[in-house]
């Protein structure tokens, strides 16, 4: 490659300039506050992990991992998500702590670089993991918490789509009989290729009723009434169990007061094999990509030798910031511009005002090249110039 220009950054990397930084900080603080009030404890893990452990266990596809080698030749990944590292910690350092564990994180995660804009290779994610709790109350809790933090962050218009991987799996197995054939159908849904799905279903040697059931899955989207349609597609014990679970979930979300934001979508398949039960995604109007996603992952912890059922969500802070918009004016600090003989006075005034929480810059006059341009960058400017009293220019 050609030598980069001095201002260039590696592909997919972004700067966070002050205005965006302020917005992100304010979002971050609100979300952290709410999450803490729900009893979740924040934690951090290292940026680099082994490819063989966290890399392979994570929900992120292999080709999306950002890989590198360490000096000893181990393959490392820049952490692609926080769920797998937290599972590693829950199964090791926090092994003595009893389940259920409520943990939270706010970290930058990494994905393989992509040529196209709008797909950064590094972005901040805030989320929670509720580990060691198999109940539907746990599923509802993380969904309700996600809704609560989005609301607190200032997002008024958002929606959450809820699906259930277990339902899809039971439906497919009850019709096509084995996992291999179910996986083919699941892949069409995962690839969002409904045309291919329908064609595949039409070509399978199935009864008309079974074909109808498979086709019907694609239209299982909407409010709670869709749960009744769902049972017609899967009138088995397993189907009844999943739907009971979803009814309880909906009731619990009603109790949390977030049922209005929620819709069911049985076609939601966000991963080929990682999730095991309820899955969900959060959307903001006028943002073309999901804000957040999550779901139940009951197999992950066993990869770290502490089998446990778990659920959680992650919110992409960059997408959330985009949804909220950089509308706010930058809150400008005040300035005290002084000449050397009144330096101590300036320091004195500034520390008093800073103690009250005001933002105050002190700047010696001779350090400024263009006073007009410079003072425009402040809300209010006080001049401490000359030997006596409050001098002005």
């Amino acid at each position, binding site marked *: 490659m050609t030598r980069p220009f001095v201002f260039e950054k590696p592909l997919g990397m972004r700067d966070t300039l002050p205005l965006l930084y302020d917005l992100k900080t304010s979002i971050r603080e609100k979300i952290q506050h709410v999450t803490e009030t729900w009893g979740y404890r924040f934690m951090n893990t290292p940026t680099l992990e082994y490819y063989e452990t966290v890399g392979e266990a994570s929900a992120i596809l292999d080709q999306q991992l950002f890989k590198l080698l360490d000096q000893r030749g181990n393959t490392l990944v820049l952490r692609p998500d926080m769920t797998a590292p937290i599972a590693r910690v829950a199964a090791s350092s926090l092994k003595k702590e009893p389940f259920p564990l409520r943990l939270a994180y706010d970290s930058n995660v990494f994905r393989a670089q992509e040529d196209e804009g*709008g797909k950064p290779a590094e972005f901040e994610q805030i989320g929670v993991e509720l580990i060691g709790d198999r109940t539907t109350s746990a599923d509802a809790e993380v969904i309700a918490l996600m809704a609560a933090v989005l609301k607190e962050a200032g997002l008024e218009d958002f*929606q959450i*789509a809820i699906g259930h991987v277990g339902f899809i799996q039971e439906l497919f197995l009850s019709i096509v009989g084995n996992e291999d054939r179910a996986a083919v159908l699941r892949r069409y849904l995962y690839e*969002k*290729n*409904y*045309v*291919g799905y329908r*064609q595949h279903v*039409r070509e399978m040697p199935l009864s*008309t009723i079974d*074909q*109808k059931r498979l*086709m*019907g899955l*694609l*239209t299982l*989207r*909407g409010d709670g009434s869709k749960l009744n349609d769902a049972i017609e597609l899967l009138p088995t014990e397993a189907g009844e169990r999943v739907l009971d679970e979803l009814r309880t979930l909906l009731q619990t979300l009603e109790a949390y007061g977030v049922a209005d934001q929620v*819709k069911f*979508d049985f076609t939601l398949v966000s991963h080929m094999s990682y999730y095991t039960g309820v899955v969900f*995604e959060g*959307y*903001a*109007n*006028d*943002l*073309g*990509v*999901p804000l957040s996603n999550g779901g139940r992952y009951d197999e992950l912890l066993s990869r770290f030798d502490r089998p446990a059922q778990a659920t959680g969500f992650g919110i992409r802070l960059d997408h959330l910031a985009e949804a909220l918009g950089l509308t706010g004016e930058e809150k400008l600090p005040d300035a005290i511009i002084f000449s050397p003989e009144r330096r101590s006075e300036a320091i004195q005034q500034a520390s008093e005002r800073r103690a009250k929480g005001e933002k105050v810059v002190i700047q010696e006059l001779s350090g400024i090249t263009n006073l007009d341009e410079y003072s425009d960058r402040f809300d209010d400017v006080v001049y401490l110039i000359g030997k006596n009293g409050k001098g002005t220019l």
Partner: protein
Amino acid sequence: MLTIAMPKGRIFEEAVELLRQAGYKLPPEFDDSRKLILDIEEENIRFILAKPMDVPTYVEHGVADVGIAGKDVMLEEERNVYEVLDLKISGCYLAVAGLSDGPIKGVAPKIATKYPNVASNYFREQGEQVEIIKLNGSIELAPLIGLADRIVDIVSTGRTLTENGLMETAFIEPITSRFIVNPVSYRTKDAIIDDMVERLSAVVEGGSLDENR
């Protein structure tokens, strides 16, 4: 308001006709406008006119809620969008063609195409090692003047091939236009999109999606 990304050119007229049949009231001057953005207020729909290859890009990024794109473009671009309905318009197919049907001679077989991903995937699946040369049009020229041994392109009637002395050497897959949907719009504008899919599929299939055919 629903934003639809439409492909300019060949597919456009067929797509407009399909929407009219589905009961969307599109003004008669609609077809020959040169504007890139057209608002149809009575339907609360905005059309954006894009290069066919770019339609899935607009839809993936969410600046268009839905779009009409050829399956060839979907295969090439592999965008994160829902492929909801086969509109069964603008039918053609992807094929390999060359000067003769015989084995490819030369140091390294070269394939010229507008679809480097499709071509590369196809030959990989065939277990053949080839080198791809990306062109932007008049692909038929490549074997004639010795740039490549074969081409991968869409074929509708085969006339361009025969007129240039080329023959089809392999069929890759059939192509039609698809109705594609942004994953977020699919949830946040579900009512209006489901209605559109229902009406379009009624025209295409002569029946609803629920019906098994």
